């Protein structure tokens, strides 16, 4: 691998890493203050769990065959369990594999974290940890293989000489996470007070901070997916920016007409919707196409976030509305808007059909498997927080912490705390019930 490309992809990997905290802030700011830390933690724990599993078996399930060509339609081979052999830098091409491994790891961290927004504010922290460990194992790693693996069946689909277009993860990441979110909330049920109590974002600047970090990192996500720095990379970066721009405008205008205000939350949400939609498509459309994809995504997602009230599923932070719908918009529209290397129109029915098949397959698999998984967790260890924990706030219930203490009071804390006990007592003294 060229030094320039390693440099590019390693830095893109760091940028994509920043997306998970970005997502945590994006989500965390939307949550009521009493459970905001729990929301952040749902995202952060994904980093730990996916990183470990990636080394142990995740990489080899998803991309084992990208190294040596052996594997099947559904999963990679198991040659690289524990990353065995991958630190041998004297092997030709090992730099490329390691670079790819660190870049793709960030996707494996982000994808399960995306789901957390739907389940927010009502699940047991320990159940969530178990859920994502299992989910990446049986859903994400295989699906990543299907779409991007050397022998993945979706990667291999062909129709009239066309192949599925999913440049940076419309199906494997966004549709996958979005539909999993839907399946999971159908199992775990609604928050107490859904549609009755107000659930106002506790910190909108934090939401915008999250959106900004996501946006920044998304350049790494999208442009970095070329795994090299060239004209396609630049086109993808440009399209990523302009699609996001129209998506912001689209969402805001929809909101102004429909609800009478240009909201900050709408602007942030529109940006994410645009970024989601341009993810699969941005390397295969021209900038005017990108403008259109962004616009459609902004409007469609602005509409889709109200569905939960109409249909009655409680997707707390609209993972379905933004990621599933945004992902579908991008994945399908590129079927019509695709251009080839020379900028000539290359879309059409067969491309569209391919896109629809890919999207449908991921949706079906992810929905069914996630639903079963959630059911199993719900009926064994239990998925939901107790009513008391949910009402009192998950931060105290699971993390024994309070997010903020702005009291100007002398000792800087909510008056009434007593001195720290320095943990000289029996271990295992349970503070919380996670």
């Amino acid at each position, binding site marked *: 691998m060229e030094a320039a490309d390693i440099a590019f992809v390693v830095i893109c990997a760091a940028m994509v890493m920043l997306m998970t905290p970005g997502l945590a802030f994006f989500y965390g700011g939307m949550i009521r203050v009493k459970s905001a830390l729990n929301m952040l933690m749902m995202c952060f724990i994904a980093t730990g769990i996916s990183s470990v599993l990636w080394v142990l078996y995740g990489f080899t399930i998803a991309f084992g065959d990208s190294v040596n060509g052996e594997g099947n339609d559904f999963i990679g081979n198991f040659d690289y369990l524990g990353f065995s052999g991958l630190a041998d830098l004297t092997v030709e091409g090992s730099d490329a594999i390691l670079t790819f491994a660190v870049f793709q790891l960030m996707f494996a961290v982000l994808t399960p974290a995306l789901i957390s927004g739907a389940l927010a504010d009502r699940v047991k922290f320990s159940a969530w940890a178990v859920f994502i460990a299992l989910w990446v194992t049986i859903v994400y790693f295989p699906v990543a293989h299907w779409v991007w693996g050397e022998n993945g069946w979706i990667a291999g689909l062909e129709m009239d000489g066309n192949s599925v277009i999913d440049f940076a993860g419309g199906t494997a990441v966004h549709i996958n996470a979005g539909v999993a979110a839907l399946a999971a909330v159908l199992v775990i049920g609604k928050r107490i007070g859904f549609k009755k109590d107000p659930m106002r974002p506790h910190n909108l600047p934090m939401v915008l901070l999250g959106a900004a970090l996501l946006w920044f990192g998304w350049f790494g996500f999208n442009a970095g997916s070329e795994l090299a720095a060239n004209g396609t990379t630049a086109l993808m970066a440009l399209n990523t920016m302009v699609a996001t721009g129209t998506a912001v405008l689209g969402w805001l205008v929809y909101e102004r007409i429909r609800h009478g205000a240009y909201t900050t939350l709408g602007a942030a949400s529109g940006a994410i919707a645009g970024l989601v939609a341009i993810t699969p498509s941005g390397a295969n459309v021209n900038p005017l196409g990108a403008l259109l994809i962004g616009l459609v995504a902004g409007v469609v997602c602005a509409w889709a976030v109200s569905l939960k009230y109409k249909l009655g599923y409680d997707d707390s932070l609209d993972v379905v509305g933004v990621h599933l719908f945004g992902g579908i918009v991008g994945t399908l529209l590129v079927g019509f808007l695709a251009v080839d290397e020379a900028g000539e129109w290359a879309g059409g029915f067969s491309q569209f059909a391919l896109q629809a098949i890919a999207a449908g397959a991921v949706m079906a698999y992810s929905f069914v498997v996630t639903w079963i998984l959630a059911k199993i967790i719900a009926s064994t260890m239990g998925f939901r927080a107790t009513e008391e924990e949910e009402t009192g706030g998950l931060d105290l219930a699971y993390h*024994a912490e309070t997010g903020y203490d702005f009291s100007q009071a002398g000792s800087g*804390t909510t008056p*009434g*705390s007593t*001195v*720290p006990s320095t943990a000289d007592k029996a271990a295992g003294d349970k503070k919380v019930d996670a």
Partner: protein
Amino acid sequence: MKLIVAVIKPHRLDEVKEALQAFGVHGLTVTEASGYGRQRGHTEVYRGAEYTVDLVPKIRIEILVEDDDADQLLDVVVKAARTGKIGDGKVWSLPVETAIRVRTGERGPDAL
């Protein structure tokens, strides 16, 4: 006139507000408070230091009422605020000497 002060659980505020409206009271003033009492607080942990926080969030409501309504109103508030669990709070009433509506300068019952 009386001033009724209620210190209640935060999530009962909506119920209390609705009950008051139903009763015909159309104004109140709310402040955020913390209470210390029988209801136990909780423990927080920060890098191995365990803190006992014994103040729990409460909402403090003030309602000016005419003397005649005071007793009934006390009951309305108590009923609406009750969950039956420890920490439900207290309601008390104080005698008021004068009450004025700032906008108009009206005094007494007309100020409400």
